[in-house]
Structures are given as C-alpha cells and as structure tokens.
C-alpha cells in the first residue's frame, strides 16, 4: 500500500479585510498518495488555487493541518518552508513565471544552484532535462523568444530539475493553445508514469481525464472525488 505523501486535515483559509471576512477554504480534509496524479477542479472562485497555495507552502492556512512527506508544516519557520519548497516541492505556474533576463537553461539552473550544485553541473543537469522534454535547440533562448508552450515546458523543467517529491501545477494549460496544452499534459503524464506525485489545478475536463483522481471543489469545500 502506498504512503500518503500529502495529508490535509480540517484546513481552512479565511481572508480578512476591515469590512469583510471571506472563508475561501472550509474544513478541507484530503490525502494524496505518493505517485498519484490529482486534478483539483471547480469553478472560478471555488478555492482551487488557494488550496494549492496552502499545500505548496506558498501561503499560511488559517487553521488545520498539512503534513507533507511526513513533516507537519504547521510550526515551520519561513526559512524551513523555503528549504522544503526547494528540496521537496516543484511549481508550474499558469503564466510560466520564468525570469525574463535568464535563458531557458539558466531558468532551470536556479534551484539547482541553490541546492549547491556548481554552475557547470547545474548547467549539465538543466540541459539534459531540456533535451528530454524536446527543447534541446532552445536552451540559450530567453523566455521572450519562446512560444507559450515552450515557456511552459521550461517552467516544468525548472519544477522537476531538483527531483521534487510533489509537483504542483496551477492551471498549466490555461494560457496555451490546444496543441501546446496537449503536449504539456502528455509531459505530466510521462512524469506521472515515472512515479512523480502531481497536484494539478485545472478547469479543463479534457485534461483532468489524464489524472488518477479528480477532486471537485465548490464554494471552498470538497464536494466530490472521482477516481479514474
């Protein structure tokens, strides 16, 4: 039986302004097994991205418990959370989020350098990954010279370069045309087949069908789970 790599218990997130208090996530409990490919779906404002930000340690939940790879994240310091994001987690953002003045290979290199690899080693590892995902001729291009699909592939390469335990993808196909979106999903599928745990936020059913499990959110609550 596979271990739970993500355990979420009674997770809530409330945004407060002077006048309004908005509960975006309401008492979420969810476990994800190692190697699972989970899609989080729901309408706009359902809390999909907010849930991903909490699990991915990009934000602090209002209450509840998040255990990642056996570690309770509740009392982690900012530095420990940064360290965990670097060593255990990978992110793919909707708008690719590449650093504009860096080339494709340099974008992929940054987390590797932070992990302590030398520039030469980081460059070699990054080039290997970019070759694997079909960008061998685009390694020295800056993001502005790449198509949307290529940028998202670079973003995926950066997210997986340091072998994260969990890969988070926030609407990775939302800004892409159908062909590019399809190729990105196929890349996720390959990674999944290789044993990568992936949490993907999407509102596109045709891409969710590639996942093991679909978690439906509505108004900040899990309303349905479909195992495929």
């Amino acid at each position, binding site marked *: 039986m596979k271990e739970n790599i993500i355990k979420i218990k009674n997770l809530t997130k409330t945004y407060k302004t002077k006048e309004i208090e908005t509960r975006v996530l309401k008492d979420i409990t969810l476990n994800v097994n190692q190697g699972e490919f989970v899609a989080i779906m729901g309408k706009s404002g359902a809390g999909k991205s907010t849930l991903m*930000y909490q699990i991915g340690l*990009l*934000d602090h939940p209002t209450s509840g418990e998040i255990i990642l790879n056996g570690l309770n994240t509740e009392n982690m310091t*900012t*530095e420990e959370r*940064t*360290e965990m*994001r*670097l*060593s255990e*987690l*990978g*992110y793919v*953002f909707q708008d690719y*989020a590449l*650093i*504009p*003045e*860096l080339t494709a290979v*340099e974008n992929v*290199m*940054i*987390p590797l*350098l*932070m*992990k*302590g690899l030398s*520039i030469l080693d980081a460059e070699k590892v990054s080039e290997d990954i970019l070759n694997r995902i079909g960008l061998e001729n685009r390694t020295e291009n800056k993001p502005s010279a790449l198509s949307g699909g290529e940028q998202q592939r670079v973003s995926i390469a*950066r*997210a997986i370069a*340091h072998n994260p335990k969990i890969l988070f993808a926030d609407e990775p196909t939302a800004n892409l045309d159908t062909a590019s979106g399809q190729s990105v999903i196929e890349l996720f599928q390959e990674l999944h087949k290789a044993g990568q745990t992936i949490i993907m936020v999407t509102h596109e059913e045709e891409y969710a069908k590639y996942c093991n499990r679909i978690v439906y959110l509505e108004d900040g609550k899990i309303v349905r789970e479909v195992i495929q």
Partner: protein
Amino acid sequence: MTENISQNSKGKWFKNISVGWFLAKKQIKGSNKSTTILIIFIMMLTFLNLVVVSGILVGLIEGGQLADKRQYSGNVLITTLVGNSDVTHTNEIESTLRKMNGVSDVSVRYIASGQIEGNYKTRRDFNEVQDIAGAQITGLSLSDEESITGISAQVKEGGFLNQNESGYIIIGKNLLRRYSEGFGDVFASLEGTYPGDEVKVTVGNNTKTFIVKGILVSKVGQVSTRAFITKEDFLKLVDKSNLNGNEISVKIDPKSKLLDEQIKANLINAGFSADGKIQTSAEAVPDFLNQIKIAFSLLGNVIGLIGIVVASITIFIVIFINAVTRRKYIGIMKGIGIREQAIEISYIIQSIFYALIGGALGVFIVYVLLIPLFNAYPLDFPFSDGILVAPVNETAFKFFLLMFVTLIAGYIPARNIVKKNTLDSILGR
C-alpha cells in the same frame, strides 16, 4: 553537533552568495546599457566629488607648504633665536651638517633689515615722498642656495647673480608695486623698478648702490619680500663682528632614508639647540596654515559627504525601482525555494558593482589624469600654486566608504521588497 550547524550555516551562505552572484551577473548583463552607464557615471562623479573637492582645498595649502619647503626652508631650517642677533656657532653647525650622512646641501643665509630706495636719481622735488621699500637684505652663498632652493629658476625678469660680480641685487616681487598691488598698502613697495635700474640699499648707517640684476617671482612670502645679494657684498654692506649666519637651510638627499626629524634630533643631541631655533620643514610652516588646512579638509569632506548622500539616494531609488518592478519575479524565486538572502545579495552585488566601477574610474581619473595635470598646471592662487592632494590611504578609505554606503543603500530597498509575502508578490497583490 555545533560544528555541523556551523558548517551547514557556512554552506548556506556560500550557496546564497553563489546564487546571488549568478542572479546579479545576469541582471546587470540584461539591464539597460544607458541606465547602467548613467549610474556608473553618477558613482564616478560622487567619488571624484569626495576626493577632488577636499583634495584641491587641502592642495591649495599643501601646494604653498611644498613651495615653502622647496624654495625656502629645505628639510630643516635653523633660524635666529629670539633675543639673539644670529645663529651662534654657525660654522660648527654647518660643518656638523655637512658630515651628516644623507644631508646633501646646506645654505647659510645672512639677513639684515634694511631699506631699498628706487628712482632716487629722477627725484627732483624733495617734497615728494621717497620711493622706499623696507626689505630683508639677504646675503647668499650662491652655489649653496642654488642647490637647495634652485633660486635662479625663480628669477623671472632679468638674470640671477654671479659669484664673480659685485654690486648687483635681486629684488623679490612683493617689494615692487607692479606685483604687490593686490596686497593694498601692506607692503611699501617700489614704483617702476626694473632690471638694470640702480637702487640705494641702506642697512643701519651704511648705504650702497646696487644695480637690479633681476626680479624674483615666488609665491613664498619669505622669499618674495626679500632682496638678495652675494654673501661678499652683504659683508661689505653690513657691519658684522663675526661670520655667523641668520638662517641655515638644510636639504636631504632624496635617495637617502634620513628624515627631517632625525636631522633635528642629531643637531639637538650635538648640543646646538641653544644656538638657533631648529625646525623641520613641517614645523617651520606657520600654524595658521595648518589650521586653514584642517578647516579646508573638513569643508571638503562635508561637501563630499553631501555627494555620498546623493549617491546613496540614487542607488536606493535605482534598486528600489528595480526591485519593485521585479517583485513578481522575486516572489517566484522565493516560491521555487531561492532563499531571501540570496536575492538580497544579488541586489547588494549590483549596487556594489555600480560603486566599484564608478569608484575605479574615479581612482583612474584622480591618479592618472588629475594629479599629473594639477602638478603640471597648478591652480594659480595668490599665495600658492594649488595642487591636488589625494593620499592613497585617504582615497582608499573614501573608496571603501562609498562601497559601504552603496551596499546599505542597495540592501534596504531590496530587503523591503524581498520580505513581502511570497504569494502576494507572485500574484501582484
């Protein structure tokens, strides 16, 4: 365990610096070239402001002090003690000095207060005020004086004295109206006296006529208010019961390691302190000049510090705008696990890069262009030839001060932006 934590922490800092360096290099490379050049130019001007303004102000005084040493005092100056009429045991002192290792030249000067009268041959109306100037009549051993002060080079009109001639005089420019008009009535000065004219020189009850051989033009007051004749003419003019001089100027061989202070100490140890006032060139400088030098240095530093504040504000704004416009990317980098310190270091390195290049250009301009230029073409001031004074240790201190201030000015805005909530930065909230 403690050792592990320490090594871990060292490793972290190494990684932070390594990533910071990588990011800074790429950002500088990717930044707008004109903006980079402009910032470096501002840093260069700031450094020049810091070094050159105080350097010139101090240089005005130091140029005067240097001229004083070269044209008057030499390395050590022995003058007549108050209450004495001359430097006693002049011969013994001179002989001791000439035997001292490292002393290259010694000049004994004979000085008497007197009057010079010009145009006396054309004065027809005896009610007319005589054209008289009070002066220190100075008798020189020409070759000795020449080797210490190069006095002949300071004669700008006419020529210098000749050891084989008698009856000639060199007049310092401040004794002539046409040179000293700027001083008002400070000096009673001679009207229309030129080389070739005859003047009457009176010391005590003795009067002798001399032909003006040349006019000595120097900004050193002690030199330009004197009139010079040969030692032989002086002894004919002045009633002296001995051959003691009134001033002894000593020059050290430039190749020698002997210090001014050592000569002074040697003379004191030899028991000559009661014979004359023994001063190094620095001590011979009037105290008010040292006070002015300190005041000018302070003024220059204040002006320079204002420049540093302006430069630090410039760097602050540049880094702040850079960090604000890149806030999203800073958030993304934090999101993918890049430590805050690494990102801050990248901004600090950028700031230091601007200051380093600007400062280095400033150093180049100061030492390769400005100092040789000021030495070749000193600033023409009434009391000195102003040079640019920039001692290496002071320049190095100002250079590192600029680095430090820039580092702080780069760190503060970077820290402010980097510490913002990661998700808010990514989402642009």
